[in-house]
């Protein structure tokens, strides 16, 4: 096999995730695995716009929330299948992603990021105030009805649902790395004026990347809400969540297919471990994961500016030299 090391690592990691539920039955471990896969997939979805196309969004919670609410309202208010909610969420996110991409087309760098934050905040206010329909700031409990059509599943089944999502997002990343559009997006990311001069319709492609990323994020939002069973507007539309997608990716390796998953493995497992460890303490540790993010980010920027992927690459080169 002549696959590059990062592809082989991805195959191993996904394989381990697929086999784990056959061996481990501990619900805490399976829950951690599901969250690692989901946050990894969502960070990969963010990476499509933020890493590959250089459209760094800090408002991706908007699309996550659209997906979460679409399915939650579909099941709680209309007694329909969450799968219909998933489709509705994707449609709404395609529209919202297209609109935000189009409207902020002239904005670059921090200005684009600011406009995405504003967008997610507008949705947060809308969802938390529209009491009659969304139940406002109280949030919506997602009814649990056993079955695949209703997404009322056990931990083992959820591992495979999360795995499918992870493989889907990873496959989109791999497709971008080898396709014409992926190269053109890389050109836009590196220098938009130069890309235009070389015949690349940068505005249209930026909208495409943001829209694709939004749709995948919405799917993740739907599945997360159905798994967790509760949609709180202050969580699903929060800036914290948007930052989580970005930081997982930056810590793992921006613009690399495996990076978002590596970031998620590190951050999510640390977070769930610490939450379990300190759950006995009533106060003080609620925000511990923010401390983890901060510390991890500082360490990465200082010692591995290209993320864990870059670190692994340097280690590989060092070992090759040591062998020679």
């Amino acid at each position, binding site marked *: 096999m002549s696959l590059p090391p990062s592809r082989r690592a991805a195959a191993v990691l996904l394989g381990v995730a697929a086999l784990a539920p056959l061996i481990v039955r501990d619900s805490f471990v399976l829950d951690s695995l599901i969250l690692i896969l989901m946050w990894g997939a969502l960070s990969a979805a963010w990476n499509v716009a933020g890493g590959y196309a250089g459209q760094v969004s800090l408002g991706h919670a908007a699309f996550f929330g659209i997906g979460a609410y679409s399915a939650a309202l579909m099941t709680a208010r209309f007694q329909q299948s969450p799968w219909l909610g998933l489709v509705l969420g994707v449609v709404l996110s395609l529209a919202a992603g297209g609109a935000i991409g189009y409207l902020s087309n002239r904005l670059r760098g921090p200005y684009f990021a600011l406009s995405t934050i504003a967008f997610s905040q507008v949705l947060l206010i809308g969802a938390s105030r529209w009491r009659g329909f969304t139940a406002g700031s109280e949030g919506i409990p997602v009814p649990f009805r056993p079955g695949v059509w209703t997404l009322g599943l056990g931990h083992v089944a959820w591992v495979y649902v999360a795995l499918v999502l992870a493989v889907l997002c990873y496959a989109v990343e791999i497709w971008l790395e080898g396709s014409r559009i992926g190269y053109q997006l890389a050109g836009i990311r590196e*220098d938009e004026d*130069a890309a235009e001069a070389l015949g690349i319709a*940068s505005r249209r492609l930026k909208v495409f990347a943001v829209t694709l990323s939004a749709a995948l994020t919405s799917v993740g939002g739907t599945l997360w809400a159905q798994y967790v069973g509760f949609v709180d507007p202050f969580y699903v539309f929060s800036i914290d969540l948007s930052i989580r997608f970005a930081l997982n990716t930056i810590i793992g390796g921006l613009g690399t297919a495996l990076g978002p998953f590596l970031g998620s493995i590190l951050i999510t497992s640390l977070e769930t471990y610490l939450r379990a460890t300190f759950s006995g303490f009533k106060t003080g540790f609620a925000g511990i994961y923010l401390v983890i993010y901060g510390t991890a980010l500082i360490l990465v920027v200082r010692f591995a500016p290209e993320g864990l992927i870059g670190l692994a690459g340097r280690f590989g080169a060092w070992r090759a030299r040591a062998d020679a």
Partner: protein
Amino acid sequence: MLTLERVTKRFGGLTAVREVSLHVRQGDLLGIIGPNGAGKTTLFNVISGYYRPDGGRVVFAGRDMAGLPPHVICRLGLTRTFQLVKPFGNLSVVDNAMIGALTRLPSVSAARLEAERVIETCGLAPHAAARARALPIGLRKRLEVARALATRPRLLLLDEAMAGLNPSELVGMIELIRRLHADGVTLIVIEHIMAAMMRLARRIVVLHHGEAIAEGTPGEIASDRRVIDAYLGEEFVLAQA
């Protein structure tokens, strides 16, 4: 092939380009010279679609280009390079050229072959796998040309491709531009370095304060009174003598 009719570009109260007219035929190698701030790069930005002219017309291949964005103009066959080079810094040299090639060739594998060919032409083959930002300025200038060439332009606009090069790099770049011209690419070259321009261009237009004050062969330009007053100075005349 390319016709400019009384093209004007203003920035507030400043007229950067004033009623410039010129005509480029298939196979030309036109030079544009002028002191700093004469409006050379502004003129390129108007021709290549980055600025919309405030007056006059730009006609390329029989088509009025007013309001067309740069990527459409590139697809029509007119590609420009930048004076301040804009490499895709984190990508390899061959990927840089490939992104240009993908404009004409939808298939990634065909574009890669084309990119390798162009890199060979531009003498960058030994650096194909290097990251663009790791290249010294002389090679970055070549990469800028290679990338533009990969889009298969009929008319190529080079904005100070020779500025900042050492003497041996300069010779190499002059050779490269001559080769491209011989291969059938029509060129407009902006340059600061008079000596190089005199050896390269068939025809030269002189810009001064945004106006085209003279046009002619290198010999005619070098002896034109207005040009000497505006730009070349007495020393150049003495040096020529």
